[in-house]
C-alpha cells in the first residue's frame, strides 16, 4: 500500500474525486500552476486543465461567493482558503449564504461544496497563520465541520465531504501535514512513514462523516481531541502511564455523541483537548454535553486543555500551544479525585 503524508493523501483525494466527477472544480489562492503554498493541489491544473483548477484573486469573500454561484449552477466547488486565519472575509458568505441556502429555499438550492483550510499553530506562523477558528463554524447551523488527524483519514474524510450533500468546512492541521506531532517541539520531527495511518489505499474510499475513532482504548479516562491535539494527547497519556481512552472526533458537526457517551460512561472521567482559545471554544460545547448526558457517571469534573485567550503570539508560540506540560497538569487534576 502506498505510504503518504497528509499533503500527499489530500492531493490524491483531489485526483480521485476530480477523475470521477467532472462537476468538481478547485480554485483558491496560488492553487493552480504552482499547486498551492502547502502543495495540496499540486498537479491538478496539469491533469484537469485550467477550467477545473485555477488561481483565484486574493479575495476570500469572492472565492466563497463565486463558489456559491457555481454550486447554484450545479457544480461542486472544492475550494481552498490558504490559511484558516484568512477565512473571515468569506465569513458572511459562509454563514449567511452557504450554511442557510438549503433551509431558506426549502431544499430547492443546496450548497454541496467543501471549503478546505489549513489551521493551527506550531509552524511559527504568528497571529495570522496559526489560528484554530473551528468554533466559529460549529456554531453555525447548516455547516458540517471536519478535522482529520492522519493521512488515511484525511483522504477518506475529504472524499466523504465532497460527496456529502451539505457544505463542509474541512480544517487541515498544518502542523501535522508532514508528520505526527507529540507536542515536544524540541524533539526531532517524526515522519508520517513511521505511523500506520500513513498507509493510504489507492483509489476511492471514504471515512464517514459523523463517526469518531477510538485511537487508544482505555478504562480510566476519556480524552476527546481532534486534529493535532489527538497526537499530543496520545503522547501525554502514554508518558503519564494513564490507561486512557483517546477519541479522535474527526467530525465536530455532526458529532458522534454515542462514541463519547459510551466511553465516558465506561471511564467516568473526561478531558477535552483543543488548540483553540478557551472561552466559547468547541471544548466548552463538548464539556457541556458530557456534563448533561453523563453526569451520573462522572467521578471528577470535566477538564479542558486549550490555548490561551490571547492572540497566537509569534515568539511565544510554545508558551501558547497546549503542549505536554499543560496536558500533564490537566491529567493529574482530572485523575486526582
Amino acid at each position, binding site marked *: 500500500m502506498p505510504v503518504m503524508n497528509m499533503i500527499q493523501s489530500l492531493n490524491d483525494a483531489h485526483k480521485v474525486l476530480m477523475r470521477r466527477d467532472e462537476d468538481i472544480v478547485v480554485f483558491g489562492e496560488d492553487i493552480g500552476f504552482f499547486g498551492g503554498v502547502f502543495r495540496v493541489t499540486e498537479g491538478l491544473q496539469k491533469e484537469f486543465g485550467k*477550467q477545473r483548477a485555477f488561481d483565484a484573486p486574493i479575495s476570500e*469573500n469572492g472565492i466563497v461567493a463565486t463558489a456559491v454561484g457555481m454550486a*447554484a449552477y450545479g457544480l461542486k466547488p472544492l475550494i481552498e482558503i490558504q490559511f484558516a486565519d484568512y477565512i473571515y472575509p468569506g465569513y458572511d458568505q459562509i454563514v449567511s449564504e452557504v450554511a442557510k441556502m438549503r*433551509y431558506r429555499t*426549502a431544499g430547492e438550492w443546496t450548497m454541496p461544496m467543501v471549503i478546505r483550510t489549513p489551521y493551527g499553530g506550531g509552524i511559527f506562523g504568528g497571529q495570522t497563520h496559526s489560528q484554530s477558528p473551528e468554533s466559529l463554524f460549529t456554531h453555525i447551523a447548516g455547516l458540517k465541520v471536519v478535522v482529520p488527524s492522519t493521512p488515511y483519514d484525511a483522504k477518506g474524510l475529504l472524499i466523504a465531504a465532497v460527496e456529502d450533500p451539505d457544505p463542509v468546512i474541512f480544517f487541515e492541521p498544518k502542523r501535522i501535514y508532514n508528520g505526527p506531532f507529540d507536542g515536544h517541539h524540541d524533539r526531532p520531527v517524526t515522519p508520517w512513514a513511521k505511523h500506520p495511518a500513513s498507509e493510504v489505499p489507492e483509489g476511492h474510499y471514504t471515512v464517514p462523516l459523523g463517526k469518531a475513532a477510538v485511537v487508544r482504548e482505555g478504562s480510566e479516562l476519556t480524552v476527546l481531541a481532534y486534529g493535532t491535539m489527538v497526537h499530543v494527547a496520545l503522547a501525554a497519556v502514554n508518558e503519564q502511564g494513564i490507561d486512557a481512552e483517546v477519541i479522535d472526533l474527526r467530525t465536530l458537526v455532526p458529532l458522534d455523541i454515542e462514541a463519547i457517551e459510551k466511553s465516558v460512561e465506561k471511564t467516568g472521567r473526561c478531558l477535552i483537548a483543543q488548540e483553540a482559545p478557551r472561552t466559547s471554544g468547541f471544548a466548552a460545547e463538548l464539556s457541556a454535553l458530557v456534563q448533561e448526558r453523563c453526569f451520573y457517571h462522572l467521578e471528577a469534573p470535566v477538564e479542558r486543555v486549550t490555548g490561551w485567550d490571547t492572540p497566537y503570539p509569534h515568539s511565544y508560540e510554545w508558551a501558547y500551544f497546549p503542549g505536554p506540560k499543560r496536558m500533564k497538569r490537566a491529567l493529574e487534576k482530572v485523575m486526582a479525585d
Partner: protein
Amino acid sequence: MSDKDPAPLKPNRPKLALHVPEPPFRPGDKPDFSRIDVPAAGAAQRPDVAASATETHPLTTSLVRVLDEDNRAVGPWDPKLDAETLRKMLRDMVTVRAFDDRMYRSQRQGKTSFYMKCTGEEAIAVSAQTALDRDDMHFPTYRQQGLLVARGYPLVDMMNQIYSNKGDKLQGRQLPIMYSDKAYGFFSISGNLGTQFPQAVGWAMAAAIKGDSRIAMGWIGDGATAEGDFHSALTFAAVYNAPVILATVNNQWAISSFSGIAGAERATFAQRAVGYGIAGLRVDGNDALAVYAAVRWASERARTNQGPTLIEFFTYRAEGHSTSDDPSGYRPTDEAKAWPLGDPIERLKAHLVTTGEWDDERHDELIKEADANVRAAQKESEKLGILPQQGKDNIGSMFEDVYAEVPWHIAEQREQALDESR
C-alpha cells in the same frame, strides 16, 4: 497620545476636517434637481457589441436615453421593439404597481409583517427581463419583483410567500418578498445585501466552465455597492471575463442614506467599471426602452464571450424603503414628483399613445384589469392563510432542510419543540 491631550497643532499645517456627505434637500426644503444633468434622448453613442470596454467608458458619465420629450423613441439605442412587446412591458409594469399597492395595504391591515414596493423602478426589472432569455439566471436583490412578473410567475405564489401561508414553497422560513424560484431563474434573495452580486459572477463562471450559452445577471442597490461583495464581483468578473451583467440600481436612497454615503459625490456608479477595465453603461432607469436596449447590448456581449458589463440604472425610489420606513423623516415628501426623469409607466404609456398603439381608455382598462387580477390572486392566496395564522401547525418542519438529513442534535431539539407546542 491620550484622547485628553491631543498633540498641539502644528501651526503651519491646516486643521484636518472630516467630510460627511449630506443630501441636497431635507424635509421642509423645496427639492430642486436642476443639478442633475439630463442629456437629450438619443444623444448617447452606441458602441458595437464587440467594442473594447474602453469605448464604453464615456457612457459611464452620460445617460443612455431613448424616449424624448415628445415621447418618441430616438437615437442609436432605440431597440425598435414591436408594439406588442411594448404593450406586454406596460402591462407587466402596471401589474407590478398594482401588486405593490395591494401588498402594501395588506401589510398595513396586519396580514403580513413586511413589504417592499418598487414604485418608480418598475421599468428596470420588467425591461431587463424582456431583454434576456427565459433561461438566463438572475441573482436579484429585493426590488426586482418585476423579473418574476415579466416571466409570468403566478402572482398567487408571490403572495403565498408574502403571507408565509400553506402555499408558501419556502415553508414560512423567509421574510416576505425574499422570493426564490429555480424554474424561473430567480435566485433566493438574501437580506445580507450585496452577497448575490459575486454569486452571479460565480454562476456565470460555471456556465463558462461548462460551455453553456446561458448568462447571469446580478443586481445590487446603490447603497450596497459599498460592500466588499461589490468589489469581489467586479474583480472576479473582470479576471475571468465572466458572461454576466452586473446591474446597479441607483435609486438615490439606501433607507435614509442618500447615494453620497455610498460614494456618489465623487463618481457615478457606472464609472466603477472603468477601474476594472470592463464595459460600463449609465442608463435612464425610468426609460423602459433605454433599459431594454442596454441589457440587450450587454447580454449579446456576454453571450459572445466579450465579457461582463456594469450597468447603472439611474432612477428614484418614489416610496419608502419598506413598510418599516417613513421617508418623511429624512427627505422632502415631494421629491419623487420633482424627479426629472419622470414616471416609467407614464413615459412608456405616452410613447405608445404617441405612436398610435395605445390610448387613455385602454390604459384605464389595463389598470382595472391588473387590479382585478391582483385582487383575484389575493383572494385565492388568503384562502391558504395569512401570516398571523401561521407558525402553529407543522412545527416539526422548521427542523428540516438545515441539513439533507436531520442530525441527532436537531432531532432532539425537534422533540423538545413539539413537546412545547402540545
